């Protein structure tokens, strides 16, 4: 297999000017990351600062109703409220050990931006975060958090002014500032070595989940399920289970409103292969290869591409990729909150929604482990808006 590829997917489709920093990073991945100094420090930070291992919780109430065991891998309980911190602590530490004083990131909903700003504050790095101007307005709370953490937030006014444009701006900034700055990519996507680097830092999710299942019930889960935008929480949850054939792996993409032809965030189900942000992977695009705007109720899934390792798991059939739409995700979010007292992020709610929608197909007594990638406090405003819109629609009809 070609270097940096997962089957046909992946690669390094970047301007030549970005090849030297990517090659430098690749070397750091080989020389620094496996070393004892890096691993010991990261292990300590993950335990005492991030709060790992995160619990694996059996939903007491929902499981009874469903007739099978619904387990939640509680990444929402990690510091800053999502799995993103696993990656940013790793890349932050790597930035330090590469001798670079600055770290830079793109962010959509602001979760990766907050996680990067947090790692930067803790590790003493300068931090700059690119965020689409539309997202800056939608996620004002996270912008404020990043600023309090000492980061500079740059609103991106080009293109659709959302996540993909923030990535474009971040890549441009990196071209000019590669000597001093590490680009802390937020998901297991982009040019090699990011898909592998980010997966390595996130795969602690699945390693812990496997061990916790063995301790609690003495067997592997029958299903592991996670939402997929770029796909970092999902590949983190899945990776440990890929060689274990008895475990069914299910990724859940965001179907948007679910109406035929609507904007969505489901390139594996509804897209076609193309090249964007340094990788060859399924994309939402026109026949001419122009990237289409994506949509999801959850800003964190709102992306027209997907990480190349998911593309390969999809192509090989090792993992199945379903979809959940905005309404299903919202219902799952409300249900989990009311029944279990856990308010999940709208991203993670897509994974829960897939389980609820497929409850009749899942064998009674099965163990289903869902990655609850983040908490939903950040989404309360969007939830209220969506409920109000639903109510006025019901009144009209």
């Amino acid at each position: 297999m070609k270097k940096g590829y997962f089957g046909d997917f992946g690669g390094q489709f970047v301007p030549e000017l970005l090849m030297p920093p990517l090659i430098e990073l690749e070397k750091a991945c080989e020389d620094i990351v496996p070393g004892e100094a890096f691993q010991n420090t990261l292990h300590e930070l993950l335990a005492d600062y991030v709060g790992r291992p995160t619990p694996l919780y059996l939903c007491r109430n929902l499981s009874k109703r469903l007739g099978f065991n619904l387990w939640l891998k509680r990444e929402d309980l990690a510091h800053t409220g999502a799995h993103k911190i696993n990656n940013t602590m790793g890349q932050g530490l790597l930035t330090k050990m590469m001798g670079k004083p600055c770290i830079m990131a793109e962010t959509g909903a602001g979760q990766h931006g907050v996680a990067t700003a947090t790692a930067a504050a803790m590790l003493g790095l300068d931090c700059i975060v690119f965020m689409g101007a539309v997202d800056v307005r939608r996620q004002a709370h996270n912008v404020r958090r990043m600023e309090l953490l000492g980061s500079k937030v740059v609103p991106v006014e080009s293109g659709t002014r959302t996540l993909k444009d923030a990535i474009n701006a971040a890549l441009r900034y990196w071209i000019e500032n590669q000597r001093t700055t590490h680009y802390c990519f937020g998901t297991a996507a982009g040019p090699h070595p990011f898909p592998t680097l980010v997966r390595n830092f996130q795969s602690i999710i699945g390693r812990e989940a496997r061990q916790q299942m063995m301790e609690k019930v003495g067997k592997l889960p029958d299903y592991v399920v996670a939402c997929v935008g770029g796909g970092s929480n999902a590949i983190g949850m899945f990776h440990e289970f890929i060689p274990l054939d008895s475990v069914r792996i299910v990724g859940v993409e965001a179907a948007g409103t679910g109406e035929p032809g609507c904007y969505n965030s489901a390139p594996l189900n509804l897209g076609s292969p193309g090249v964007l942000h340094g990788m060859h992977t399924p994309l939402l695009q026109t026949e001419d290869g122009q990237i289409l705007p994506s949509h999801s109720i959850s800003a964190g899934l709102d992306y027209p591409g997907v990480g190349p390792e998911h593309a390969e798991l999809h192509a090989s059939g090792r993992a199945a990729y379903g979809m959940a739409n905005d309404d299903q995700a919202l219902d799952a979010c409300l249900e989990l909150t009311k029944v279990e007292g856990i308010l999940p992020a709208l991203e993670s709610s897509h994974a829960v929604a897939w389980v609820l929608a497929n409850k009749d197909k899942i064998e009674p007594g099965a163990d289903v482990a869902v990655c609850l990638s983040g908490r939903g406090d950040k989404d309360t405003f969007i939830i209220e808006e969506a409920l109000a819109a639903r109510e006025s629609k019901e009144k009209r009809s």
Partner: protein
Amino acid sequence: MSAAMIESGLEAAIRAAAKEGRLALVPFLPAGYPDKDRFFEELDQLDQGGADIIEIGVPFSDPVADGPVVEEASLHCLELGVNLGWIFDELAKRKGRYKAPLVLMGYMNPFYQYGFDKIADRAKEAGVAGLVVPDLPLEESFDVRKTLAAGGVDLVSLVGLNTSAERLAEYAAVSSGFVYFVSVLGVTGVRNALPDEMLEHLKMAKQAFDVPLALGFGLKSPEQLVPLKGLVDAAVFGSALIRHIKDGGDSASFMARWK
């Protein structure tokens, strides 16, 4: 097979300028800019105004290696409905009209969706002699280079200030047509001065390549060309030409400044 074995129209055009003791001039204009009709008037003016090669931009929704001026122009052309099919159709209608060989410059995805074999097929009828693809570095370029070569189309390599001697040598082994040297460690069209460090690096690149060297990205005034004589063979203008047209000028008056 070494690309040097095939007679390249791009290389010949630049060598011809050198014989006249001058830098070859390579203007860049996004296809369909400022509108679909005027674009071809501008193309005529560029060709008659002394362009040695003309670069035509293929618009893309996410141009990561371009600055704001080119991006805005490119998105404008997308809104006008410009795509590769239109570009090839229109150029084919004008076959033989231009003295200057044409180069298409654009991002990987639109070319990839159209198909490199189809591009290789249609290049001759459209007068297209080369492609510049900023997000296709050496490692990903081998298959594309081969497909294009079958249609007599050069894949122009891009290198920059941070390209090591080793990588320059690797590019030199596969390059044909000319090589594009990106003048500053930044995106197109946002810088004023030419850094000193660049002069050293240009010498290194000139030694590494047999094919001519073109300097691009960020050229603003004819005075900037003076220290480059002997170091490079051609100069590419992108943002400066777009800005000139946007401010009410035309390609003829633009070319007159640089000749």
